[in-house]
């Protein structure tokens, strides 16, 4: 069973097609790097998958249920451009609130474990307002991962995160992958993405132009991807 199954998906802003004819299936445990230029539709695709944005044609199944069904959202961890934590709540309150929102049964020990995990145990009861950028990002990671979703949708995770958070994200993603979770991440940082990706998808003008297993060749020589792009005629 595919974790994500998109069939001929079209999304329009007015008459403008932001996603065209996207058909894609992802197996459990795969990690798909979503590549493409600005405005190619990466963020749109992730938002549609997260159920944040309605689409007009085609069908999308996420983890066997319709996209944006409560079941699909319960199993999804979404990290968008914004980090999605409240400035006026403490780290602990943030995790508790979002954990409850995700329907996860999180007791205090689990919360403490997560706070320790992202190295925020010391400041667990200070408001996020006082946190540094890196601390907020780590809190956002804990928020995204704490309910152990089966699917991760990450929009440009490497650009908004600092080095330490990226390392932590890599670790967390590795663990999630080990337990069979699937992930889709959009990125411009091809090197970082290829290091963890099992699949590569290329979007251009809202269209999925290329989707294949990541090859070792791509990792060794990132120019391979540029070559593929050129062959497809994507400027």
């Amino acid at each position: 069973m595919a974790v994500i199954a998109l069939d001929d998906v079209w999304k329009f802003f007015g008459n403008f097609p932001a996603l065209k004819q996207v058909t894609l299936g992802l197996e459990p445990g795969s990690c798909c790097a979503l590549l493409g230029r600005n405005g190619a539709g990466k963020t749109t695709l992730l938002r549609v998958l997260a159920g944040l944005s309605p689409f007009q044609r085609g069908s999308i199944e996420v983890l066997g249920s319709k996209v944006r069904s409560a079941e699909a959202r319960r199993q999804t961890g979404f990290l968008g451009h914004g980090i999605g934590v409240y400035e006026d709540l403490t780290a602990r309150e943030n995790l508790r609130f979002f954990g409850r929102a995700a329907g996860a049964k999180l007791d205090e020990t689990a919360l403490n474990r997560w706070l320790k995990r992202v190295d925020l145990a010391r400041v667990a009861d200070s408001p996020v307002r006082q946190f540094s950028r890196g601390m907020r990002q780590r809190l956002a990671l804990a928020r995204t991962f704490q309910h152990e979703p089966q699917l991760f949708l990450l929009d440009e995770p490497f650009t908004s995160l600092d080095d330490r958070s990226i390392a932590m994200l890599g670790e967390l993603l590795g663990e999630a992958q080990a337990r069979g979770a699937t992930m889709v991440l959009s990125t411009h940082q091809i090197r970082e993405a290829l290091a963890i990706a099992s699949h590569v998808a290329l979007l251009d003008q809202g269209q999925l132009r290329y989707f294949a297993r990541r090859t070792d060749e791509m990792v060794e020589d990132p120019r391979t991807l540029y070559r593929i792009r050129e062959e497809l005629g994507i400027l």
Partner: protein
Amino acid sequence: MSIQTKPLNSSDAAVPSGPATSANSVVVDRLIYAFAGLAAILLAYNLYQIFMVLGDELQQGAIYRIIFFHVPAALTAFIGFFVAMVLSVVYLSTNNLKWDSLAAAINEVSLVFACVNIVTGSIWARIIWGIWWTWDYRLTSMLVCILIFFGYLLLRQSIDEPTQRARLSAALSIFGCVDIVIVWKSIEWFRTQHPGPVLSIRTGGGSMDPTMEAAIYRNLIPLLLIAISLVILRARQESTAREIDSLRRRLM
């Protein structure tokens, strides 16, 4: 699984509600002319009847004739707001922007007719009551109605993305229309200076000369026809504007 696809041409991009084709547009043109022409003929006939055939009303004299525009304008406006609400529901359940254009056009035209109603009413009030305006509940309700749908236009203006604009304004159209129903239901519970209902569908007959009442209904038809031709015109502009927006997005 691996995929490699050819780029879709923009012509392949079969949009759910594309621009009107030229053949289509000719039909629409003819429709607009037909409705407007018919309205002109009926209006000419009605005006002749109203001014030359019907006599003055006993108490009000000549000015009562304004009712032949005052009441049908209000009816046109209310029919419009109601139809627009239904179309908004249809848009929200089908996601077809054609319904949004139509709803927006209807709300806009209805707003104009609501203004006609309030202006004619004001002229009448100046003559009969000696005042332009009174905070009578029915007058106030019409003003509320105008304010709500003026807000609708403001809202549409302040959103650039057509799909979001369609969804949010559909929601407002529904809220607005339901609110008007609540406002108008409470009229009957409130003392009012405005003349009571005169049309026999409301009173069961007897309060108005049947020939006059018939003239009111007869004048509703041309006003509705004018409204319809304006709506078609505006709806087409609305879809063209959307097409322009999508072309602009394509360039970005």
